[in-house]
């Protein structure tokens, strides 16, 4: 008979989980393709360390200033900043992806208590938690310097505050995990997240227009309304300890403890559901049983009949993929929104909007260039969402040029729609430029797009990177493709700028338009000429493609 496994202390289990996280990170960075990631990680670590240590000094000085000048209301600001950072930062960096699944630990013989404690400790190893604790220590040092007698109550308050923050963070994380487990919810949340991020960009122009909220003092005016909440309670406890109000101190501590109790109970409830075997997988999504299709005659007109069946099939497939990718769909809303944002901030017919206005002669080409920069980037990793389906392209009797053509046509169609929308918005906001500049810009867009498709296809074939639908975390193209895209965009922007300015210098308004029309024709012809060569590249690179995308 096999041995019976021995028991392991919770501390040992926490240490094992920490080791596991470290090994996962180390092994991920060991692969050849992750060298750039490693460099990025080292830079991020150095930058983060400076940021955390620097801000710790700021918090230390802020606490010392508050205590020594008696302006204890500033403590509210410090506690709220830490609390908001602790709770929101993990969502921004890790909320939308499947990182190491903590729940997988449930296969091991853990008690619910151990699972809860390991889960809490797991949260304390996050960057946001470590940074926040460093900043809290900064406050403690500041308070200690100002009044050494305050240290014991300060440490008690910090202990409770850390426990409360860690519990809330894990609670939010576990709820997000549950919501994000479903593909549709995940895509919807990612879409809402992006829209929210973009909407925040409009706050500054609105504030500038209204002329209010110009200083931190104004923010401080609103903080008393938040007094029943935990960060305010921690601050109030500290203030009460400073002035020696024992009853107020105990009341705030009791409030903080009550919050910890409530959040702990909720977290316990969530972890207990996971412990009992809560099913989060996509396969569990209820299937809609629909009436069976009856065979229909194929009388509908084929709108793509001008294209070969293979190109049309790829085009249709790309359209369906786009229509089902909430993240991509929402990102398509971005360009017109950004055009609106920039035209609100930098240009406009209405002097009330901003003090500086740009002429459409400059603003229009600049915005189109910006749109190309935004819209062409996905073309440099155009197989990102194929997954295992990439094998179909290689087993089917199809020349790869047809696959590339179908993909590029879809991309070009989307770009056309986006550019027309943005042009309409620009026309309404700041007006259209003169005919020569308009013609030159449109021709330049065609030149830049067709020219980039050939390079982007080569990069997509040579340096593919798999991306997941509706996921943000870790969703970026390979380092090389980003650099090539960046370099090509800069080169093309340089060429276009030179040609545009050449028209000004030579006082020939139609010279840029003529030049760009010639370049557009040449780049379009060049694009079609490279398709066969790219089919050869696809054949050579198929193993890399299949291996990367089927992983």
């Amino acid at each position, binding site marked *: 008979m096999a041995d019976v496994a021995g028991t392991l202390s919770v501390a040992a289990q926490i240490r094992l989980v920490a080791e596991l996280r470290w090994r996962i990170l180390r092994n991920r960075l060991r692969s050849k393709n992750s060298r750039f990631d490693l460099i990025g990680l080292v830079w991020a670590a150095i930058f983060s360390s400076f940021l955390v240590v620097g801000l710790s000094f700021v918090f230390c000085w802020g606490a010392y200033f508050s205590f020594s000048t008696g302006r204890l209301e500033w403590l509210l600001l410090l506690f709220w900043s830490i609390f908001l950072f602790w709770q929101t930062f993990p969502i921004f960096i890790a909320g939308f992806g499947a990182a190491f699944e903590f729940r997988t630990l449930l296969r091991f013989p853990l008690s619910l208590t151990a699972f809860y404690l390991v889960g809490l400790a797991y949260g304390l190893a996050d960057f946001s938690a470590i940074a926040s604790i460093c900043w809290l220590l900064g406050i403690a040092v500041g308070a200690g310097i100002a009044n050494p007698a305050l240290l014991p109550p300060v440490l008690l308050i910090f202990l409770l505050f850390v426990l409360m923050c860690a519990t809330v963070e894990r609670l939010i994380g576990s709820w997000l995990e549950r919501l994000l487990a479903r593909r549709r919810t995940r895509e919807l949340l990612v879409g809402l997240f992006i829209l929210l991020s973009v909407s925040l960009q409009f706050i500054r122009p609105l504030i500038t227009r209204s002329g209010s909220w110009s200083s931190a003092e104004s923010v401080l005016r609103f903080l008393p309304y938040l007094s029943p909440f935990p960060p305010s309670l921690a601050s109030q406890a500290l203030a009460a300890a400073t002035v020696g109000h024992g009853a107020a101190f105990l009341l705030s501590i009791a409030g903080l403890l009550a919050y910890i109790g409530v959040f702990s109970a909720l977290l316990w409830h969530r972890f207990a559901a996971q412990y009992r075997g809560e099913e989060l997988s996509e396969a569990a999504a209820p*299937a809609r049983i629909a009436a069976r*299709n009856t065979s229909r005659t194929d009388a509908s007109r084929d709108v793509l009949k001008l294209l070969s069946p293979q190109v049309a099939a790829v085009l*249709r497939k790309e359209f369906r993929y786009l229509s089902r990718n909430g993240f991509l769909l929402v990102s398509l809303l971005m360009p017109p929104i950004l055009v609106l944002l920039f035209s609100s901030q930098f240009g406009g017919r209405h002097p009330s909007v901003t003090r500086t206005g740009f002429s459409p002669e400059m603003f229009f080409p600049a915005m189109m260039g910006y749109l190309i920069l935004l819209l062409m980037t996905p073309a440099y990793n155009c197989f990102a969402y194929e*997954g295992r389906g990439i094998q*179909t392209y*290689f087993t089917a009797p199809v*020349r790869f040029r047809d696959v590339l053509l179908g993909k590029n046509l879809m991309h070009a169609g989307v770009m056309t729609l986006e550019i027309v929308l943005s042009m309409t918005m620009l026309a309404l906001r700041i007006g259209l430029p003169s005919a020569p500049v308009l013609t030159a810009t449109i021709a330049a867009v065609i030149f830049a797009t067709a020219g980039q498709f050939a390079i982007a296809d080569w990069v997509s074939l040579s340096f593919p990177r798999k991306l997941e639908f509706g996921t943000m975390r870790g969703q970026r193209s390979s380092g090389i493709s980003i650099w090539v895209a960046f370099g090509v965009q800069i080169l093309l922007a340089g060429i276009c700028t030179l040609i545009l300015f050449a028209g000004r210098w030579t006082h020939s308004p139609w010279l840029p338009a003529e030049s760009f029309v010639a370049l557009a024709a040449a780049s379009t012809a060049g694009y079609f000429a490279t398709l066969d060569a790219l089919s050869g590249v696809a054949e050579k690179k198929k193993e890399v493609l299949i291996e990367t995308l089927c992983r």
Partner: protein
Amino acid sequence: MTDAAIVTEKLTRRFGPLLAVDGIDLQVAAGQFFGFLGPNGAGKSTTIKMLTGLLAPSSGRVQLLGSDFSSHAVEVKRQIGVVPEGMGLFERLTGAEYLNFVGRMYGLDRATTRQRSEELLEFMQLADRPKSVIADYSHGMQKKLALAAAVIHGPRILFLDEPFEGVDALAAGALKALLGRMTERGVTIFLTSHVLEIVERLCSHVAIIHKGRLVAQGSLAELRAGTAGKEAVQTTLEEIFLSIVGQDGSGRPQMEELSWLM
């Protein structure tokens, strides 16, 4: 063999220093139900990938239906159907959309593609979830869809990598019957599976690959006759397989080392 559907000559594939497939010579006649066996890591999937154009051989030649694969890739692919390892499905399409896509990629007209798609979905019992994308299918359903996609254009050779894995007994029975009918009509089926009972029941001919080398090839009767020990007629394919693969002692795990478990 004049009516050979699949012929390989010294087919070799290296991955850096690793010799995954070591100069194998295969001959599969048209209309044969051919089983390709081997332990994990023997080179089965690498071979099937080379036979279907998913992997370029390091050296050697692949000839399908008399045409050289490397020089007539598109023409050859038109006549073969593949269920590759991992199935190769576009997971964000619905089953019907995927079949329509594949049919069009193989050059079928729209009406034929749509009709065949509906019939295949009905046969595979996938027609009652028309709105579900493939990502929401179970593993067995995905396998059935991959099989449907492999046959939609009426291939002359069918390559199946573990086709019955995860498929329920009811559907598997229907599929086996369908595949049997296809071979009667002259379609060649090249099958890999770890379930030796399935191979024994379906296949008339078998090849065994071990450490990248072809160690046996022939009809079941020929393999039985070549196996020493028991009466040839009573020998099962599993026994043949174990006797061939386990000859050098490396194929069969040594249980004695796990005495603490027993």
